[in-house]
């Protein structure tokens, strides 16, 4: 199970940049299709909000790949840093 958790980490690392690419590409297409202020604001909001979350999933993937989730802490005493 721990091996699977680590391998899946690669998927989450890839998912982050893919999500950012899809988001930015759709935003550019939609703004070009309808270059009004409403469209620009709405897509700017999506990019500002979702890019940090996509970075979060990359970090999650890195932790998973490193085996940080092999054992979850049961109490504060298990937290070492």
């Amino acid at each position, binding site marked *: 199970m721990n091996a*699977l*958790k680590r391998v*899946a980490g690669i998927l*989450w690392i890839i*998912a982050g940049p893919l999500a950012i690419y899809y988001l930015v590409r*759709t935003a550019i297409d*939609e703004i070009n299709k309808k270059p009004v202020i*409403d469209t620009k*604001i*709405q897509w700017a*909001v999506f990019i500002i*909000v979702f890019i940090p*979350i996509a970075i*979060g*999933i990359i*970090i*999650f993937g890195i*932790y*998973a790949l490193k085996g*940080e*989730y092999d054992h*979850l*802490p*049961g*109490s*504060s*005493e*298990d*937290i*070492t*840093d």
Partner: protein
Amino acid sequence: MIQPANEVQSIRKIIMASSVGTLIEWYDFYIFGSLAPVIAGQFFPKTNPTAALLSTLATFAAGFIVRPFGALVFGRLGDLIGRKYTFLLTLIIMGSSTFAIGLVPGYQTIGFAAPIIILVLRLLQGLALGGEYGGAATYVAEHAPPNRRGFFTSWIQTTATLGLFLSLGIILIARHSLDADRTRSIAKFEDWGWRIPFLVSIFLVVVSVYIRLRMKESPLYAKLKTEGKTSVNPLKESFTHRSNLKMVLLALFGATMGQGVVWYTGQFYAQSFIENVCKVDFEQSRTILLWAILFATPFFVVFGNWSDKIGRKWIMLVGMFLAIITYRPLFGKLYSIADEKNKTEVVDEKQISTAIKPIVNTGNSLRKIGTTHFFDDGTLLMETRTDTLYAEAGKITDKPDVKISKLLPANGYWLMVGIIFIMILYVTMVYGPIAAFLVELFPTKIRYTSMSLPYHIGNGIFGGLTPFIALLLTTIYTGDKLVGLYYSIIVAGLCFLVGLLYLRNKIDPNVND
């Protein structure tokens, strides 16, 4: 384990005091969304009603986006100065902002200042809500015995849905109480009566503040404070310490993200779908949701209680999985119930009425043609076509405004109630046990900060943006009426996989650590 009677009574008081405040905060937050089309007309005057609605939804969405910041600000305060005073503060901010929205003059009176003030107040609402939930859930969980934590916190979990119920109910009552004549009452509501649900909030908040002032600090937090073990910098501890950050990320990607989209798809998006896509009448679309909420709400407590026996993980994941595989057929069924193509029109009964009103000082007139179609199953379809009759010869309205509204017969109505009940049942599965799950994931000294952030990113951003993103997807991919659901299905699917792989099902016996 049998608890002493006074302990049971004390925890009931704690749940009551926490839940009432949280319920009011959700009510305050949702009346804005429930009144989006009316607010669009008052504060975002555009010639295109869809654009105006989108502007309102954007303002509505701003309230969701700011929630994680509220979680950080008030979560930090909650871990530094205590749970009790922090969520008292959030309640006051929320109540004042909601009351103030009810007082802001419309665009026609103060111009652009109106939408800007509304946006600022909406942001304050979002900040306050961001601080409220984590505090209430933490407060109740820290009072609850280990073997009943899921059960006791599930009462807090009912408040979001009941807040929505209360907001819809008060809006419907206000809409019909302003005049003996129904049409005039609705017109008055859209003119000034929409302010009533916002103004009513102040009374609810005063009562709730009074109740909360009588509460004591959480015993676990009070103990930490006495021992001098509270966190000096909870934000730093939560997000720069690898061990805590990895749990924050796990909570977000393995639980709250999926829970958020399931919550908003089953309730907000479902209501928006039956009103705007199925074209079901304003009132029917809301009463359908009200009945479904009423029947499903007890299941928050059922699943919260059950999670004390079998663990939190599998109940949440099964709820998510059922949502992923059944959303398309369920929404497809909602659409087909209202679709007139599946019905036979009784052509002889068709009624047409025309009203022409002169437009002052122009020589032009406004024409309204109302057509009522009757169908064999009892469905009524009302079409109102509005255009301008110009005095100038040969000039015609390019695009008449066409509004369609359907009144469903009893069997179609109750079938819709049943389908939405199923979707809210999924909500109760993912949401009922999640407060206990989050509380058990983080240590006491950084709990308020650490659990609030993933909850509000998951519920506020992923969930809150669901109706907005779903509507947007239908404008990009116009061929499929159910395309908006892909957002919820993909987010819930990703969360299900992460939860399946990385979450554990163990109930933490000791949250005093």
